[in-house]
């Protein structure tokens, strides 16, 4: 496939792996303390497993699969809120497919659908708006979910609904923002990270400037990376090079898609429609200040949280879950006490087992060849 095969070329991959090995061999990496590089974005996690990248890297490098899967970090209480909205008889609840299986304390959206709630899977918020137009007697609620990647499309849909005077459409806003979350991870006392692969799609919207603090204040290298396997290998090489040279910079490997200044039109729509929440609850990470957005007062009529009474009950993560430690790279997914036993993709207990982009589900599904090699 044109423009994809070029980025999946195994001959070029071998060259890059050789370069990475050569670079690492000149660095003094302690035997019991490999370099930890976190890919922040779930899309990277997926590519890493899909193409078997972990197994190609020298043992001095360990990839830590970060919090960048919005489905995974959604707390149980918010899922309960979704279910309670979806179960209202007048509501058509429109959601991305991934969110259907996320367990709430009572049930998932998929179970709610089976029990009679009108839950529909959509691929874009505009599909949800179309459902609203076609069902004027029903209330259509779109489950707004995701980082800055999906935030603008929800914002533009709200603006579209406003200009068309659609009154039976609203958004249950669970959009979250990446920067405070990276900061929270960097502030955690048990941190073991040496560098970051930055989220490509988020950066396409916000640009690279918001990451400067990671380099300047926390002195960690950050390379904004593309999603094809060669992108990822090259970005790992760039992070290593910074570590080797004692630099901490924000670099952009994905310049073919990510402009350093971001996307002005998308940012404009975002700032017009949303404002920061004081704090937002994350599964596995707890409450993080300014890490979520809500609709501004001007768009209250499109805000499902104001249109409907929702339970808004905070549900604690199950005690046995170690999602937070996995997210921060303190332990590997398979070192969690409940991995593969009490917590499986069929019956996920923790956030990271839910979506195919979650680190635990990815390990469970695609397996870590390294993990198996280590176990043998």
């Amino acid at each position, binding site marked *: *496939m044109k423009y*994809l*095969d070029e980025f*999946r*070329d*195994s001959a070029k*991959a*071998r060259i890059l*792996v050789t370069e990475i090995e050569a670079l690492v061999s000149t660095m003094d990496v302690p035997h019991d303390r490999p370099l930890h590089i976190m890919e922040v974005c*779930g*899309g990277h996690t*997926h590519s890493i*497993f*899909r*193409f*078997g*990248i*972990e*197994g*190609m890297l020298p043992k001095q490098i360990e990839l830590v699969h970060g919090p960048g899967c*919005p*489905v995974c970090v959604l707390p149980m209480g918010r899922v309960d809120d979704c279910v309670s909205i979806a179960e209202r008889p007048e509501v058509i609840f429109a959601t*991305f*497919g*991934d*969110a*259907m*299986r996320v367990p709430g304390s009572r049930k998932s959206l998929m179970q709610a659908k089976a029990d009679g709630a009108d839950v529909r*899977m*959509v*691929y874009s918020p505009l*599909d949800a708006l179309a459902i609203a137009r076609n069902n004027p007697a029903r209330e259509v609620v779109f489950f707004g*979910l*995701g*980082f800055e*990647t*999906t935030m603008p499309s929800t914002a533009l849909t709200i603006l579209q609904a406003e200009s068309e005077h659609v009154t039976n459409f609203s958004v249950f806003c669970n959009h979250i923002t990446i920067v405070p979350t990276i900061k929270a991870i960097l502030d955690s006392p048990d941190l073991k990270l040496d560098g970051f692969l930055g989220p490509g*799609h988020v950066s396409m919207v916000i640009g690279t400037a918001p990451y400067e603090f990671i380099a300047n204040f926390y002195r960690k290298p950050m390379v904004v990376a593309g999603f094809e*396997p*060669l992108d990822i290998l090259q970005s790992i090489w760039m992070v290593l090079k910074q570590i080797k040279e004692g630099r901490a910079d924000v670099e952009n490997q994905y310049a073919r898609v990510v402009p350093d200044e971001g996307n002005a039109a998308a940012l404009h729509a975002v700032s017009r429609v949303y404002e920061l929440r004081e704090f937002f609850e994350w599964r596995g990470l707890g409450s993080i200040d300014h890490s979520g957005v809500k609709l501004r007062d001007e768009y209250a009529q499109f805000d499902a949280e104001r249109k409907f009474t929702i339970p808004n009950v905070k549900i604690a993560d199950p005690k046995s879950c170690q999602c937070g430690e996995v997210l921060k790279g303190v332990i590997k997914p398979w070192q969690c006490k409940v991995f593969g036993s009490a917590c*499986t*993709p*069929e019956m996920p207990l923790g956030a990271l087992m839910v*979506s*195919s*982009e979650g680190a635990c589900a990815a390990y*469970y*599904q*695609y*397996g870590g*060849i390294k993990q*198996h090699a280590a176990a043998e």
Partner: protein
Amino acid sequence: MNIAPFIRSRPLGKVYVPTVTLSHGGGGKAMKDLIDDVFVEAFDNAALAPLEDQARFDLAELAAHGDRLAFTTDSFVVDPLFFPGGDIGKLAVCGTINDLAVGGAKPLYLSCAAIVEEGTTIDLLRQIAGSMARTAKDGGVEIVTGDTKVVQRGACDKLFLTTTGIGVIREGVILGAHLARPGDVVLVNGLLGDHGAAILCARGDMALETPIESDCAPLHGLIETLLAAAPGVRFLRDPTRGGVATVLNEIADASQVAIEIDEAATPIREEVKAFCEILGLDPLYLANEGKIVAIVPPEEVEAALAAMRAHPLGTSAGAIGRAHAGEAGRVTMRTVFGGRRIVDMLVGEQLPRIC
């Protein structure tokens, strides 16, 4: 077929209204007319003609085909009913033919049970029945018995079909998921994932237009050719729901072998690859309706491939992987990129990722 000669005592009934109503399920004349007009008219054959509650077969005639009876059933609820490359009727006939054929059986007779939602048009039923009849005729099987139920609106989605099939397995043909051994080669007869991608596109939710057609086809002819050329074939399976990945996991588990497939050797249409890229799907898990996965001993691979490629349904046949004595039950893939990954069973439905 040794069936007592039957003289039709009355002409076939006819339906003169445009849509099915609950009266067509009432057991009276309206139902009789519907069955006559739609199904008997289309399926027309000697075993069906007496319209008894059962079709009757001469055992000696069945026994002439082999030494074991194969018996299978499958229900079809596909949405939409018509899709590029087929329809629910063609699918219902091919699906059951294939379930018989992958056991090494010669498919002979099918049943057809239809659950119809009130309000469905008679024309639609005639089209589907016609498609079933054509597919059965082309496949050399007869639809010899059936049942029709009408349910109220909302109790089913337009039309659900169930087909049950009987076939006979030739002496000496022994196929089983537990028979794969290290060194055996995994073959497929062509491009993977077409059916799943065609159905998802035809549903229209994705707002994607593609030329992808379902591969829906009866495979018993191809399988007969394959088994004649490579009698040592260990196992055959049609990778429908769950796709090739699921079938390979079943084989690895049942045979207690490891299987490694080579992504670069796995035949997938460019359009299907692109479709999967856009939606975040894995083509290994997409359904096929005209494909087989064959486990073949190494010494017969060449003959098996040549036989399949000479058949119209196997022109793109290829070897995609090999069983080996690694971790029992484990399926892995050598990726195009040069890495290795595990190919596990699918959990639930394959849902597109969101970012």
